[in-house]
């Protein structure tokens, strides 16, 4: 680890380094060039790489996503920025039917080296149409890698690896993490597509990804004060899911709580519960529990919004319940 920077700068650095390294890499999306990115992730890239490689688009998600996929068929390596993953719904046909399925449908002939990235999940008071988590939507589909970084080190190392991959990648950022500070590695380092144990523990495994991982880490501190030693796993790779990291931890702690911002139905938490059933059911001392976003379109009102998303206290209580302490 070399220096402290924000997630925002880590993402910027990852793209800059890869743009410098490979002339086939380009960035395309709404406001990525002259505006420097709606969230300033692409700040300075237009100046350094010019309008041929940092491409502003009209507000045409389906069109520019499909165009980028087409360019990748001929060996270009596009990074597609969605201003919000909510807008990727306009383009989801191109993401799934054109990007994810083509390698298979072509019998392995056509690669689609492309990264779709942008903020996913809740922000602060932006209402239902701008606050949805699409992790389980994309994680459902074969042909994709789905990544959800938390720290600056995740953000930089995973994005660099994503840009170098020859597969289509869904890269789920989080607006509320863009300012998070942390250390990052130098230009050579890529992160492996594996989960990370953020805090070791023995009593219960808590899995989380993206923004709520921070809440899970805070909850673990409170649990520590209560004499509960929780292991917290950063589930930053959602497809192909890192089954080994999950099962190893559960076989040690014998308890599992899955925390997630997205809705509970057909969620990443549902999937983890099933994976544990299939791989290490006999190690469980209590039923797997999930703490997801409440099953409603995310409200605007501050009190209702807070109620809708997993909070630190909710995580503490849910963990205690799994352990039979509540």
């Amino acid at each position, binding site marked *: 680890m070399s220096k402290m920077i924000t997630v925002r700068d880590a993402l910027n650095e990852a793209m800059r380094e890869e743009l410098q390294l490979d002339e*086939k890499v380009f960035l395309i999306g709404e406001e990525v060039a002259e505006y420097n990115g709606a969230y300033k992730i692409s700040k300075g890239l237009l100046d350094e790489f010019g309008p041929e490689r940092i491409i502003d688009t009209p507000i045409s998600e389906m069109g520019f996503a499909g165009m980028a996929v087409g360019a990748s068929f*001929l060996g270009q390596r596009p990074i597609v920025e969605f201003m919000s993953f909510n807008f990727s719904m306009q383009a989801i046909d191109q993401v799934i039917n054109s990007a994810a399925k083509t*390698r298979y449908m072509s019998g392995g002939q056509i690669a689609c080296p492309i990264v779709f990235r942008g903020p996913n999940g809740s922000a602060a008071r932006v209402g239902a149409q701008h606050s949805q988590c699409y992790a389980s939507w994309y994680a459902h589909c074969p042909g994709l890698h789905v990544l959800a970084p938390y720290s600056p080190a995740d953000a930089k190392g995973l994005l660099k690896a994503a840009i170098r991959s*020859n597969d289509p990648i869904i890269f789920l950022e989080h607006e509320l993490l863009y300012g998070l500070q942390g250390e990052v590695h130098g230009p050579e380092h890529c992160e492996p597509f594996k989960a990370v144990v953020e805090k070791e523990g023995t009593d219960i495994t808590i899995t989380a990804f993206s923004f709520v991982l921070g809440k899970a880490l805070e909850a673990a501190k409170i649990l520590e004060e209560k004499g509960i030693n929780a292991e917290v796993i950063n589930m930053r790779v959602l497809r192909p899911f890192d089954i080994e990291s999950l099962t190893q931890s559960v076989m040690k702690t014998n308890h599992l709580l899955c925390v997630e911002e997205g809705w509970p139905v057909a969620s990443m938490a549902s999937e983890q519960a099933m994976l544990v059933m299939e791989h290490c059911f006999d190690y469980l001392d209590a039923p797997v529990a999930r703490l997801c976003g409440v099953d409603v379109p995310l409200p605007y009102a501050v009190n209702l919004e807070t109620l809708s998303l997993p909070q630190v206290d909710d995580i503490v209580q849910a963990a205690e319940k799994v352990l039979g302490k509540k």
Partner: protein
Amino acid sequence: MIVDKKTAQKMLAKMMLIRRFEERAAAAYRDGHICGFCHLYIGQEAVVVGAQESFKSGDAVITSYRDHAHMLSCDMTPRGIMAELFGKKSGYSKGKGGSMHMFSIERGFFGGHGIVGAQVPLGTGLALALKMQKKDNIAFTYFGDGACAQGQVYESFNMANLYDLPVLYIIENNGYAMGTAARRHSGDKALYERAHAFDIESCQMDGMDVLKVQEVIAESAEYVRSKKRPFLIEAQTYRYVGHSVSDPGNYMPKEEKQQYKDNDPIGKLSSYMLENGLSSEEEIKAMDNDAKASAKDAYVFAENDDLVSEDELMTDIMEDQNV
């Protein structure tokens, strides 16, 4: 004379091959060898055959699910295509794609896409890549009149214009979006005029006359290549058969169908070649026999080919399966 003997014979042979191949595919469907969706190109042959005369090495071609003819025009083999239709191991996609999903990087063919209109942004992206790679090549992007009702087509036009992309859009207007006649899906009659809203030059042509198609596309492809700008052509054509093999096409009036059959592209070019001394009747008959033989050979090959190995079920999903 606007066409030399060699070119005329080549185009006639190709149209015949497509016609006979599609007839064989229909027979194979009836025989139970081909299942699912199978969209035939019978009647439309002049469009892709005339257009492909302007194809140069390094160009890219992309189309919808009605794609067998485009692959044959790209010189992909009848055997490889038929084997894919049969779901066999020697198919272009090892049997994993089927009628609508075949590709050949070697021949410049990028599918074979089953979502109506989705190939238009993809083809525009092929053009973007060609531009970025500073190639002297263009992207032939085919779609039907039905696709003209999809919004992403116009998102593509807008960006092709904005970014000066070397893409040749070819609308194959066969008069029907599946079973919906053009007059019932498009209020405006001239689809090619829609390009003007995006400052893209365009024209309409008789898509039943391969000589006309060849001439018009040669000119427009040269425009795209030299000016590095998009161009759109609307080919007015017709399919003598239903939307897919399972569609009897009862919505197509008999007189209308007959009118187009009387104007058949293969018959028309044959007559032209006879009248202008480019081929004798015997030669034309021999060409058709060759086409029939190729189609039959493809059928027999596909029938005798093995099913894809079950070990292939979980391959070709991603390169980095275990990152």
